Every structure is written in structure tokens, then in C-alpha cells.
């Protein structure tokens, strides 16, 4: 039996391979994600380990509240003295390691996109982790180094001038050395070293360190030294061995990248879900076509179990082949994905690609599992073939159409799905479990729709086929009839496409809603004409920039906005700070309680809080809220007003004064600058004047008018959308392969019919057109149902968000374009089957049995 199965598979190798495509893409994404994240993690492990060469113990400040930019607090340098006194310390030195900007002498950024740039300090030789392939360490205040890769990218050489931007104006340095950290790659990131005092001054951390590195006397273990040092440092500081520090940093990076892993796995799951429809369909059709063969096997004594086994072994082998190819493709995909990330400005560090045994085992298990599960029902159906089937010309298998059972299952699944989605939305569970239950719910609903779908195919094909019949005449008519012939087959093929398109419609609608919500926020809450933002739109910049702008002629008011993550009565949230004297001119607050006067009169320990925070912690005007800073200090703020917060949260969930932000929360850089111009001045002229004023001292600050701001936000959203499209395209391709395979199988089944059509005068062109029309009908059924499902999902999920000022908008034009593209994709999917059908030899076709 086994060799028969194998021979069957071989005889239909192309079809089997195409079936395998159903899992190849999903598995490629699984394996690719593993390879990518393992590679990245390993690269980070290497960076952290190698950068601590020569270091035994590390002192850093604890972060009580994780900041959005991932920064850790610095601490007073005085503690170094105590540390040096500890018995067993050979050497100890403070260091700076902060984000900043590295520019060439023209003021052009040397890095790009979302990859951070770092300013760090040089220390004593003993802690030196880097090599100098060219030049050497900085010895004077005006000298700096740059990592070799960044210098290569920017075309900078030893002796050139680079500019470093920290807390203040951009300052020029002479490049004296290129650095290399062991075999590590920094990805898109870059790092520049200057002398310690220079680094402190650049980053606004005078009298502060980000880290103290300690080398132990010989004979003293890192663990022992760690314990000794712990006793002398104040609370709020963390003492770790170098290994512990590297491990913790690596695991924090891993956590912060886990969203990427989860997202990629989600797309893999989508592709596999779609693939399972394709596999189910192919096995259903081939089992039906092999009825005679199964009947013959039964007549010569094969048991039901043997038939079942032969079909399942076939699916096992297809799953295995698909998974193996998938793993190979995934390996290539990992390289591709990192290129995509690089293209959107988020290049990850990578050395050679890492393939762990886990990657291969999990990929094989999932691929084979999905294939076999998808083919269980067809396999069981194959066992129901009676021996008599061998003898009869035409036989219908499984004649009983269990309408009631189907309906019950569909309704049950649909209800469970809707319940899962609804309960998650109502309870507001977010994060992984929320996403999982919404995803699970969506799968249930989609399955329910697919079970119902065969009932919908006939009317749907009639409606969609109507214009095609009008254009195509007989070929259109036959195409429509053919698509209705096996409603189940068409339904599953279309359903596979429906899933991908539902998701595309959903994200398209959401992204468009997000864009228009951003526009609304800009229009509603920013009366100023100009916005300043840092590199990449999110990195903070010097507060001096806003001061500079205030001097420009035509500027009425300018205020910087800073952000800090804090705990407000234990609830982690984001607050902002403004310069109260100017803020009402550049920022419009919608009040729930209080007025602009409360904002203008905001002093030291007063706060205006957002309504959702107010609701959550039950604090209103007149109450006191306790804010915990990143370093764990607690401050009491009096609530003087409650404002409505929008979904973009430009003001966060609270507004405090700039001074409080600086003193209590140690945030001394602006994240955004808001500028209001005098009435009557020319926008373009003033914008140019502002740009000129900032160009030299603050080259990283971008000056955007409202239109440009909206555009830049839209571009970010669209960039993300594009990436999602690319990943969803995998699922779409799988469903298109589904159309291809189904068409090929149907054509094979209709060989004699096609031969007759050719014999009575149908031209090749007409045959091709007929196949194409059928593909288009199937594709459009999938597209229309997908768009409908996507719109409904977006609508339902948008309901609870509408409270936060999020307004869905339906990009009808884009959705129509998607519909047309899908119909075209149907045409493309039909190319090969149509050619195959047209090439059928009439003679063979009519004499074929």
C-alpha cells in the first residue's frame, strides 16, 4: 500500500507540489521568523557580551517605570568613589551610553530611520571592548570615533568632521578612529565615542553616569565582588555581574522585539489557515476523482483502514515536502525580511543566519500537522467508497448532504466566534491574550461562513456571472455554470481568498481611520501652524531649539512638549509637560472639567489629567494623584482640571509644567515643538526662516507645517500598511494557488467535455476565455465576500474605539481597486490552467475514459 501511495504521489508530482505550496508559504514564514529572531537575538547577545569584555561587575540605575524609548535613568557620579573603596575592586570607571544623533559635517544624518544612534564615553584601557581597525582612541575633547560600519555607510574617513547632537546644539568633532566591536554587527545602529566629560556634557549628564564598569582583582569572583559592591551603593542602583548584565539586556531586547515575532507568527498562521482550505479542497477533489480507484482497491481486498492510511500517508508526505521546502524558503525569507526591515529604516543587527534545531522541528510539526488535519475529512470520505464504485461509470460519493449537521456546526462556530470577539472587546483585554482570543474568534466566524458558503455560491455566481455572461456570451455562461457545478469546491476556493481579503480590507479601513483620526487631531488640537519634531519623528531634541524659534520674526508663541512614562497611583501611563504660559496658544484642550485658565495657571505640583486616567484611578479635580518617576521617586500632584483625551494622545494622560518634568522626572529634551505664528504672516516665508534658524545648530530638528505633519504621519501609517500588505500577500498567493489547483483538477475532470466542445467548434481562445471567466467569478466571489467581512469586522471592532476619538473611514476607492486587482489576480491564476485546457488534444480528450 505504501509504495502505491508513493507511486500515486509521484505520478501526480506537479499537482502534489502545488498542493504543498499551501503549506510552503506559511511554514516559510514560521521558519523565517525563527531564523530572523534567533539571528537577531544572537547578534544582540554577542554585542552585549563583547561590549563587557574586561568588565566583571556593572552598576546601573534601576528603571521603575519603563520609558517608551527604552532609556534607563542615569545616576549621580559620586557613588564611584564608594565603589572604588570596595575591597577587591581593581579598577572602576563611570561611563555614558546615551542616544543622540551622529551627523556628517553637512548636517546630514549618518544613520537612518528607526535605528538608534548612540553617544558613549571612552574609559580606561582595561574596559576597552572595541578594536581600532583605523586610527585610535580620542585623546582630546574635540575628537571622536565612529563605528566602522556607520563610517562606511556615510562615506566618512579619519580626519573628517562629524557632528554630535545630544541635549544641546550640534557640535563638531574630528574623527580620529574607527571602531569595531569583535565580530558584532550593529545593524542600522551606530555609535560614536568621545571623552567621558565631553559625553556627559553632550548628553546633559554632567555629574552623572549611565553605568559604572568594575574590574575585579585577580582571585575575586565577579559574584563575590557584586555582593560587596551592592552593600555600598544606594538603593535605586542595580549591581550585576557582567554576565548577568549582558543576559538582562539581551532578554530586554528580546522582549521588546517579541511583538515582531508575534506579528510574523500571526501572519504565518493566516497563511497556514488559508493553506488548510486549499489542502482540504485538493484532497476532496482528488478523492472524488479517484472513486473508481478506491472502489477497485476495495474489490481486491483493501480494508477501509488501508484506504484511510493511504490517503493520510499521501497528505503526510505532501506536508513533509511542503514543510521542508518551506524551511528552505524561510531561510531565504529571513534574509528578505531583514531587508524589508532595513528598507523601512529598522535594520536589525545580524551576523550569519542562525538555524536552531527547534526551528526545523517546530516547522515540520506545524506543516505536517496542518496538512494532515486539513485532509482528515476527505480521507474519511475516501473510506466510504463501496467496492461497486470500481464498476460503475459515474458515481456520486457521500450522497447524504447533512444540511442540519452543517447548519448546526456553522451556527455554533459563528456564535462562539462572535462571543469571543465581543467579550474581548468589552472586557478590553489587550496584549497577547486579547489578540489571541480575537484571532480565535475571527477564525471561528470565518469557518462558520465557509461552511455556509456553498449555499451562497450559486446566487453569488449568478449575480457576479451576469455581466460576464453579457460580455462573454456562451463562454461566460459555461464559466458561470461550471463555477456553480460543485458549489462546495468553489466555496472553499473563494473562502480561502476571502480570508486574505477580509484582512486586507480590515487593515485598509483601520489605517485610513487612523490617518483621518490623526488629521482630525492635528486640525482640532493644534492651532499652531508649525510643528517641530526630532529625527525619525520620535527622538527628542534640545529644548534650545524652541527658544531659538521664539526669536524668529513672525512667531507668536512656541512651546516644547516632553513626555515621561510614570505610574499614576500605580497605573502606568504617559504624561506630557508644556510651558504653561504659551500652551493654550499652541494647543487646544477640550475640557471635561476646568478651563484654559487652569492650564495657564499650572504651577509646580499641579496636573491636568486625561479623562480615561481620571476614570481608571478615580481621581478628579481637587484630588491628589501620586506620580512615580522612572527612578522610583514619588511625588504628589494636585489635579486642577480634567481634559478629554484623543486616541493619538498628543497630551498623554496628564499635563504638568516643564519645570516639574525636568526636576521630578529628569526629562530635559523636547519630543515635539508647537509653534504659532503671528496672524497675517506668510506661512512659507516664516517656515523657511525657522528652518534657517535651526539648520546649523539643530540639524536634526524637522520643521513641518500642518500639511507636512499630516503627510508624514500618513506616510508612517502607510509604511506599516505596506508591510502588512506584503505579509498578507503570502496568504493571498496561497489562495490564488488554490484557484490554480482547483481549476487544473476541474479541467482534468472535464477533459472529455472540453474535447467535445473543441470538436463541435470551440476555438482555443474560447476555451481559454471560459477558464479565465471561471477563475474571475471565483476570485470575485472571494473578493466581495472578503471585503464585506472585512468591513463588518472593522465596523464591529471600531465601535469601542470610537469613544477615544477614533473614527473609522471607509476608503471606497481603495477597496474598489482591491476588488479589481483581485479579479485580475483571478485572470493571472487562470493563465496556466487555461493554457492547459486549450492545449488538450481533442483526440485524446474525446477518446479519454
Amino acid at each position: 500500500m505504501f509504495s502505491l501511495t508513493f507511486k500515486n504521489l509521484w505520478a501526480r508530482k506537479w499537482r502534489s507540489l502545488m498542493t504543498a505550496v499551501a503549506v510552503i508559504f506559511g511554514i516559510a514564514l514560521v521558519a523565517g521568523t525563527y531564523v530572523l529572531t534567533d539571528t537577531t537575538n544572537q547578534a544582540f547577545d554577542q554585542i552585549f557580551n563583547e561590549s563587557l569584555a574586561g568588565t566583571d561587575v556593572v552598576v546601573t540605575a534601576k528603571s521603575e517605570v519603563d520609558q517608551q524609548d527604552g532609556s534607563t535613568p542615569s545616576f549621580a557620579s559620586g557613588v564611584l568613589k564608594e565603589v572604588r573603596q570596595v575591597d577587591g575592586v581593581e579598577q572602576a570607571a563611570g561611563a555614558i551610553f546615551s542616544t543622540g544623533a551622529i551627523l556628517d559635517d553637512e548636517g546630514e544624518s549618518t544613520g537612518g530611520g528607526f535605528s538608534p544612534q548612540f553617544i558613549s564615553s571612552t574609559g580606561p584601557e582595561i574596559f576597552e571592548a572595541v578594536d581600532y581597525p583605523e586610527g585610535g582612541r580620542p585623546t582630546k575633547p574635540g575628537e571622536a570615533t565612529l563605528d566602522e560600519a556607520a563610517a562606511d555607510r556615510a562615506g566618512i574617513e579619519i580626519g573628517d568632521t562629524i557632528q554630535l547632537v545630544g541635549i544641546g546644539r550640534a557640535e563638531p568633532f574630528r574623527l580620529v578612529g574607527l571602531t569595531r566591536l569583535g565580530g558584532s554587527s550593529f545593524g542600522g545602529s551606530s555609535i560614536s565615542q568621545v571623552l567621558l566629560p565631553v559625553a556627559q556634557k553632550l548628553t546633559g549628564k554632567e555629574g552623572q553616569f549611565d553605568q559604572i564598569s568594575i574590574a575585579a582583582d585577580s582571585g575575586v569572583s565577579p559574584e563575590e565582588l557584586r555582593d560587596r559592591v551592592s552593600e555600598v551603593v544606594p538603593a535605586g542602583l542595580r549591581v550585576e555581574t557582567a554576565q548577568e548584565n549582558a543576559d538582562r539586556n539581551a532578554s530586554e531586547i528580546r522582549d521588546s522585539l517579541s511583538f515582531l515575532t508575534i506579528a510574523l507568527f500571526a501572519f504565518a498562521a493566516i497563511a497556514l489557515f488559508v493553506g488548510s482550505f486549499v489542502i482540504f479542497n485538493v484532497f476532496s477533489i482528488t478523492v472524488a476523482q479517484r472513486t473508481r480507484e478506491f472502489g477497485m482497491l476495495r474489490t481486491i481486498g483493501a480494508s477501509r483502514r488501508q484506504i484511510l492510511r493511504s490517503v493520510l500517508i499521501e497528505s503526510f508526505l505532501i506536508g513533509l515536502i511542503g514543510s521542508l521546502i518551506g524551511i528552505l524558503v524561510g531561510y531565504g525569507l529571513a534574509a528578505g525580511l531583514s531587508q524589508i526591515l532595513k528598507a523601512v529604516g529598522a535594520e536589525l543587527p545580524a551576523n550569519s543566519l542562525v538555524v536552531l534545531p527547534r526551528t526545523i522541528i517546530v516547522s515540520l510539526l506545524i506543516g505536517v500537522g496542518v496538512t494532515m488535519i486539513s485532509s482528515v475529512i476527505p480521507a474519511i470520505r475516501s473510506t466510504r467508497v463501496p467496492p461497486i464504485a470500481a464498476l460503475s461509470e459515474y458515481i456520486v460519493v457521500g450522497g447524504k448532504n447533512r444540511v442540519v449537521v452543517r447548519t448546526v456546526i456553522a451556527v455554533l462556530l459563528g456564535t462562539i466566534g462572535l462571543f469571543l470577539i465581543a467579550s474581548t472587546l468589552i472586557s478590553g483585554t489587550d496584549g497577547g491574550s486579547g489578540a489571541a482570543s480575537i484571532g480565535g474568534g475571527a477564525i471561528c466566524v470565518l469557518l462558520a461562513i465557509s461552511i455556509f458558503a456553498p449555499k451562497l455560491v450559486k446566487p453569488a455566481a449568478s449575480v457576479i456571472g451576469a455581466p460576464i455572461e453579457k460580455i462573454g456570451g456562451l463562454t461566460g455562461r459555461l464559466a458561470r455554470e461550471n463555477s456553480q457545478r460543485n458549489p462546495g469546491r468553489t466555496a472553499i476556493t473563494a473562502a480561502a481568498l476571502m480570508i486574505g481579503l477580509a484582512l486586507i480590507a480590515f487593515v485598509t479601513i483601520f489605517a485610513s481611520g487612523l490617518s483621518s483620526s490623526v488629521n482630525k487631531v492635528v486640525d482640532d488640537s493644534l492651532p499652531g501652524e508649525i510643528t517641530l519634531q526630532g529625527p525619525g519623528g520620535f527622538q527628542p531634541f534640545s529644548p534650545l531649539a524652541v527658544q531659538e524659534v521664539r526669536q524668529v520674526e513672525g512667531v507668536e508663541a512656541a512651546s516644547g512638549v516632553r513626555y515621561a512614562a510614570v505610574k499614576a497611583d500605580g497605573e502606568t501611563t504617559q504624561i506630557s509637560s508644556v510651558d504653561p504660559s504659551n500652551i493654550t496658544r499652541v494647543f487646544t484642550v477640550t475640557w471635561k472639567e476646568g478651563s484654559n485658565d487652569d492650564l495657564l495657571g499650572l504651577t509646580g505640583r499641579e496636573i491636568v489629567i486625561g479623562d480615561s486616567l481620571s476614570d481608571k484611578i478615580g481621581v478628579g479635580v481637587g484630588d491628589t494623584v501620586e506620580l512615580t518617576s522612572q527612578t522610583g521617586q514619588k511625588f504628589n500632584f494636585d489635579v486642577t482640571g480634567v481634559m478629554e483625551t484623543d486616541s493619538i494622545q498628543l497630551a498623554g494622560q496628564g499635563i504638568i509644567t516643564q519645570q516639574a518634568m525636568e526636576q521630578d522626572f529628569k526629562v530635559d529634551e523636547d519630543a515635539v515643538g508647537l509653534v504659532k505664528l503671528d496672524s497675517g504672516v506668510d506661512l512659507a516665508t516664516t517656515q523657511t526662516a525657522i528652518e534657517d534658524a535651526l539648520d546649523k545648530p539643530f540639524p536634526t530638528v524637522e520643521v513641518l507645517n500642518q500639511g507636512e505633519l499630516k503627510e508624514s504621519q500618513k506616510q508612517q501609517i502607510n509604511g506599516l500598511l505596506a508591510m502588512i500588505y506584503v505579509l498578507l500577500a503570502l496568504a493571498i498567493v496561497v489562495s490564488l494557488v488554490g484557484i490554480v489547483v482547483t481549476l487544473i483538477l476541474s479541467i482534468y475532470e472535464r477533459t472529455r467535455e472540453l474535447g467535445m466542445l473543441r470538436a463541435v467548434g470551440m476555438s482555443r481562445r474560447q476555451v481559454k476565455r471560459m477558464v479565465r471567466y471561471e477563475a474571475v467569478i471565483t476570485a470575485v466571489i472571494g473578493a466581495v465576500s472578503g471585503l464585506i467581512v472585512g468591513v463588518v469586522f472593522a465596523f464591529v471592532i471600531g465601535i469601542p474605539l470610537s469613544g477615544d476619538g477614533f473614527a473609522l473611514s471607509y476608503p471606497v476607492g481603495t477597496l474598489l481597486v482591491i476588488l479589481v486587482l483581485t479579479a485580475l489576480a483571478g485572470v493571472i491564476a487562470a493563465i496556466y490552467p487555461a493554457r492547459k485546457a486549450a492545449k488538450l488534444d481533442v483526440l485524446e480528450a474525446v477518446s479519454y475514459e
Partner: protein
Amino acid sequence: MSLRGRFRAGSGATVAGMESTLEAPSHPKSSESPIVKATGLERIYGEGQAEVRALDGVDVTFDKGRFTSIMGPSGSGKSTLMHILAGLDKPTAGTVEIDGQEITGLDDGDLTELRRDKLGFVFQFFNLLPVLTAEENILLPLSIAKKKPDQEWVDQVIDRVGLSDRRSHRPSELSGGQQQRVAVARALVTKPAVLFADEPTGNLDSKASDDVLKLLRGAVDEVGQTVIMVTHEPDAAAHGDRLIALRDGKLVHDAPPVSADNVIELLKTLA
């Protein structure tokens, strides 16, 4: 397999009935130029040791308005001959002319045109489109060619095949005999120069076979349809005006059939 085994000899009664049909002197005489003319046909499959000469130098012509049966034992080349005459297969050597048109060199597009304009087919397995009604199946060649049906002729054809009350039935709602009559009507509706029938009764019981053969006979007698039929059933062959037989790719017999028994005898000699 023995030759005798391949033949499902009809019952005596059927054969007797057949003879009565044959007795009617109803053969329209037409001695104009032949409608199908094959010259020096050869068809060789395979090469070297495996070479098979399916046709080995066949010259044959078919006159307009005649009903010719082609017979021969399995492997004699009878099907190959028909396929080549109908442009479904290409000869290794030799030429075929249909209605004055040389067809052996035609490409697929021209062959499609030829089939639309001049050829009709009836197959063993009916080959109807299950998604179309009986009438739609009959009109199919006209729809494909985007030709307007001549309603009077269509009605006449449908009436002739006795399916006037079955026009809107789907093939699955028709018996095998009815389906084959639909197929005959489909072949007649375009008034083809030649109607090729490939074992048209191979899948029918004797009553249905008889109906189909009478239809073909009628078309020849009443409207001068030219019919070329491949069959291995002596009863069927006996309906024709002319019987040609092949053996080993060569034409070995060409004469009017006398009776089914006579045909059986003839085939025995061929074996």
C-alpha cells in the same frame, strides 16, 4: 481477445428488423465529386522496434449523401482512419480533402473553423454538457460559432430526434438513448458536410441503438446528410450504404453490406 468476444451479436429479432430496413431501396444515388477524399494515408506510431503502422497506405473516397460504416478488428486502424479524416489526428503521410478543402496542413485555428462549418460529431459517451439543457446542448455548436440558429431547421431537428417535449431537460434527466439522440441532433443542427460517428451505439441498449441508427439513416435518406461511422457492431454496420473494413492498417473490403450475419461472416474472414 478473440474477435468474436469483441462483438456483441444482436438478437435475431433485431437483425431481422434491420434487414427489413435495408430492403428499402432508399439510397440516393450521387456520383458527383466525393465530399471526403483520402489519398495515400499512412500513420505510424513510435519508432524502430516499437513502430506501429496504424494506417499503411489507405486510399478512400466518400460520396456525398452516403452512409458509410468502417469496421475492422481491434488495432486495424479504423479509429485512426476516422480521426484523421475528421482532422483530429494528422497522418504521417498522405492527404485528406473535405468538401474540396485540403485539411492535412491546417493549423488549430483553421481546424476549429473547419469543425464549425463542415463537421459534425457523435461520440460513444454522448459527451453532453451536464450544465446545459437538451436544447442548449443541441444549439451549442451554433452558440460557439456565434451563428444565428435557423429556428425552423432547429425545430425540425429536435422533432426528428423525438425530443420536442424534453427541450428544457438536463442530460442527467435523460436516458442514455435520449442523450445520444441529443448528441445526434447537435451534430445535425449545423448541416455539416460530414457527420462522423465514433461507436455511437457502443454504450446503448439495442432499442436505443436502433433509434440512433435510424436517425442517422433518416438524415442520409431525407436530407442527404453524409455519415461516416466507425463501429464494431455488425447490426450497426448493416445500417450503412457501404461497408469498408480495415486490417493491419490496410483497406481490405469495400462493398455494400448485405445483412448483419453477412457482416459477421466477413469479420470472421478478416480475423
